[in-house]
């Protein structure tokens, strides 16, 4: 207990926790839009593409200042998205191909530059390689200030453009048709994604930062059908994962923050997938079981009769799945079929169900009764 209080009082750790949690909050909020726009892969490309920018900015200014590095990172991140756009519109290479190539090329150049500066005489280059997996412990007070400002700007823009972002995400054609400048707004979203991604470089790292955008949204979607609530839940999930990741990695200097954050996120996504109130699998199964009423034998008899008269002389029997569809309402027909067989009205051969003579006349009688 004492160590925990000490831990909270520790100036460095407070910075680290606050900074990483904040990255999670901003990443979760904005990531919701990236997720709904199916731009998950784009976030991955952008975060990988920031690496060469980080190294180049360091070479240009000879400083390891997070503000400087973020500018460089944003530069190559945006360059990558622009290149994808050009390749997508000007060549016959499809968008996913362009993204795959951009990711590999930019990240490759980044790693190359990183290994080159290891041989430079500057002493302070040490630690740049931490950007790959992230090291939250390296955050200092001034870094956190920069993060708060950048994240604050992203969130304010998100709130100001809420309706715009919502309509161009749901129905871009309608947005354009009603006068919204969709192309500019889409560029704005990409810029916000880049801004959010560069926030996480130092703490979460370039490889795993895209998880900070997408995973909170994937978890949040399971709990709600409201966009605003989804953004809130994603922010909470992101913030909690960020804080947890930072705390765990702070205990041991050898534990990189990014992977820990991702593990926490994965756990939350899994829990949400199963237990999420709106679309979680457990609730889904329960609803399905409940809605699957047992079909009435007479209904099944009528359905089989209708099937046989529709396929008179061509098909001898019908599989259970077909009978179920003929009955409709995803009803369970198994017990009804068994009851019919027991009553000698229907029979099964190799999984195909057909009516017996008696069953057929019974089905005809039923149909006549219903009409009359």
């Amino acid at each position: 207990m004492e160590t925990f209080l000490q831990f909270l009082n520790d100036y460095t750790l407070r910075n680290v926790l606050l900074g990483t949690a904040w990255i999670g909050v901003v990443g979760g909020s904005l990531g919701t839009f990236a997720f709904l726009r199916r731009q998950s892969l784009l976030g991955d490309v952008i975060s990988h593409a920031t690496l060469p920018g980080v190294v180049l900015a360091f070479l240009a200014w000879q400083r390891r200042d997070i503000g400087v590095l973020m500018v460089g990172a944003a530069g190559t991140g945006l360059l990558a998205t622009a290149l994808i756009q050009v390749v997508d519109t000007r060549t016959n290479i499809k968008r996913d191909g362009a993204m795959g190539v951009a990711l590999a090329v930019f990240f490759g150049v980044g790693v190359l530059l990183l290994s080159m500066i290891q041989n430079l005489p500057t002493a302070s280059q040490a630690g740049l390689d931490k950007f790959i997996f992230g090291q939250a412990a390296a955050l200092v007070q001034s870094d956190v200030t920069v993060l708060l400002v950048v994240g604050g700007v992203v969130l304010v823009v998100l709130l100001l453009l809420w309706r715009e972002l919502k309509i161009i995400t749901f129905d871009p054609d309608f947005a354009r048709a009603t006068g919204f400048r969709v192309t500019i707004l889409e560029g704005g979203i990409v810029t916000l994604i880049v801004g959010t991604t560069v926030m996480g470089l130092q703490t979460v790292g370039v490889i795993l930062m895209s998880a900070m955008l997408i995973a909170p949204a994937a978890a949040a979607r399971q709990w709600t059908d409201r966009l605003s609530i989804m953004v809130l839940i994603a922010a909470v999930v992101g913030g909690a994962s960020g804080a947890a990741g930072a705390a765990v990695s702070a205990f041991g200097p050898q534990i990189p923050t990014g992977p820990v954050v991702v593990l926490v996120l994965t756990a939350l996504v899994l829990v949400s997938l199963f237990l999420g109130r709106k679309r979680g699998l457990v609730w889904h199964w329960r609803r399905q079981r409940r809605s699957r009423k047992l079909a009435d034998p007479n209904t099944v008899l009528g359905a089989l009769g209708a099937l046989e008269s529709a396929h008179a002389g061509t098909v001898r029997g019908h599989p259970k799945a077909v009978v179920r569809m003929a009955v409709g309402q995803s009803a369970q027909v198994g017990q009804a079929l068994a009851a019919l067989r027991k009553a000698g009205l229907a029979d099964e051969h190799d999984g195909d169900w057909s009516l017996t003579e008696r069953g057929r006349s019974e089905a005809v009688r039923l149909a006549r009764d219903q009409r009359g």
Partner: protein
Amino acid sequence: MQTMPPALEVNDLTVAYRDKPVLWDVDLQVPTGVLMAVVGPNGAGKTTLIKAVMGLMQPAAGSVQVFGEPAGRQQVRRIGYVPQRTSVDWDFPTSVRDVVAMGRYNRGGLWRRADRRDAERVARALATVDMEDLADRQISELSGGQQQRVFLARALVQDSDLYLMDEPFQGVDAVTEQSMVAVLRRLQEQGRTVLAVHHDLRTAPAYFDWVALLNVRLIASGPMATAFSECNLRETFGGSAPEWTTPPATTAA
């Protein structure tokens, strides 16, 4: 008396997709106050015509005038739009009411939130299309016909003078179709103009009073009584006119 300009006038419109013409040199006039059906086989460019007028596709040549003025951002408020139902992801986390409200998002600037008048307008549109009971339903739970009615309601709150609709009856059951036709009639009574892509040749003469027959080129257009002739239909759909009976419910390219 000054003659009223047509609600929509399309001149020499050519739209190409990768050097292949989808629409070729189309001249079309839609007089104010008519209900016009756009009919034609799959791949005839019906959707493209709507999208080009809406400014969603860049034409290779030609011009579009709306109420006598070149189509552009100034005219946006005067055109209501019902896109194809399948053009969006209905799994989006939002409610019926929210989607309909989007028809009024373009009113006012950055700071403006929806006010009570917007809310009333949305409620009225939902009542018009018989969806008020489902107003708070999550949109992924809607049937095809309900989705179609949501899109119609969203267009109604746009309060436009000209409506462009891309297969508004696609996936709609017969009863709903009748009530939607009644909504179109009411729009017409209010002096508004409707141009709608329509797939069912049997119902076209009953639902609409004008028609445009399209097959990359415009074959004919005019009042239903004169333009919807067997000769024109044969030219539009090809000699065998295979779509006289129920056409397949496929989406046009």
